[in-house]
């Protein structure tokens, strides 16, 4: 199957997201309980799902890295986690906005869903210092992969644990006692989720392409300027893009 280009991917993400947001404001009915403020969920929940799924995907790439020892999987794992952390920032901010509108407080510490997501977010926030703390690139990649697998396994466990906990105030989008969302709301939600997933994929591919170009540039410069060239840009946190990724195959 032909993989669509990054450009097509980005255009599809923009179109589906715009369609989803149009459905949110012009098609989906107002929630009987929460009213207009419920429109935040069409943004907040897809962001959260993509963020958590991205963490798991980062773990899967990390497994592939440890199994094959190919640095390309380390790069993919790093980028997946990086984007998911950014999406996680969006989840926390939009969730806080909804909480303030609905509960009158920006944050509630006795709500398992909020606190568990914050724990997952803070866990992944330590991924960067972990990479930064290890100078040797190979060891850094291995340790980061072990971290990504462990933390990635924690995400679904955490999700199940929160579902099993007795939640008093955080609403559930799926599988409520009344059978979940009505059809029009579900359609809107699924379009928003698809758009958000496409956006996540497009941004991951964009960052991977930029990293590949940057690594190729460094190699070109080294080839042209000789061994005295030392890269001045690029942090040690970012994984080394493998030479196989820039050699003709």
């Amino acid at each position: 199957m032909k993989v669509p280009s990054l450009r097509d991917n980005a255009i599809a993400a923009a179109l589906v997201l715009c369609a989803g947001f149009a459905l949110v404001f012009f098609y989906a009915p107002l929630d009987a309980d929460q009213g207009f403020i419920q429109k935040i969920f069409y943004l907040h929940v897809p962001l959260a799902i993509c963020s958590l799924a991205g963490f798991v995907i980062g773990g899967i790439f990390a497994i592939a890295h440890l199994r094959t020892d190919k640095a390309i999987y380390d790069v993919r794992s790093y980028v997946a986690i990086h984007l998911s952390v950014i999406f996680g920032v969006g989840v926390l901010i939009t969730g806080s906005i909804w909480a303030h509108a609905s509960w009158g407080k920006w944050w509630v510490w006795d709500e398992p869903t909020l606190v568990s997501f914050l724990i997952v977010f803070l866990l992944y926030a330590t991924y960067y210092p972990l990479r930064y703390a290890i100078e040797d690139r190979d060891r850094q990649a291995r340790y980061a992969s072990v971290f990504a697998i462990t933390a990635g396994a924690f995400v679904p466990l955490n999700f199940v644990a929160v579902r099993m906990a007795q939640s008093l105030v955080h609403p559930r989008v799926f599988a409520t006692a009344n059978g979940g969302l009505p059809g029009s709301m579900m359609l809107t939600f699924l379009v928003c989720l698809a758009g958000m997933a496409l956006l996540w994929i497009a941004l991951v591919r964009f960052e991977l392409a930029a990293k590949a170009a940057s690594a190729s540039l460094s190699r070109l410069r080294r080839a042209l300027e000789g061994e005295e060239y030392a890269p001045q840009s690029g942090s040690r946190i970012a994984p080394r893009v493998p030479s196989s990724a820039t050699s003709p195959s």
Partner: protein
Amino acid sequence: MPALPLDEAGKYVAGAYLVFLTLVLIYVAIMAAKVARIQRELGELADLAEGRPDDNPPGADAGAQENARGEAEGKVLERERSSREELV
């Protein structure tokens, strides 16, 4: 808790969607700055490659030099393209 009136809820909803838009824009701006830096450095490298003495031997024909340079650039671009496709 009763639902907020539309005018008050609207501010929160607009705020949430604006936060999302801002996050995406900041990320894209940072990545665009990186890509611009890569393009600038690539231009510097192209200048460096064109100015190298090995590339301009005194007896060489100007047309042959141009062809060789174009061929080399084509190979480099092809290699870059294939590597990016592989990585993505």
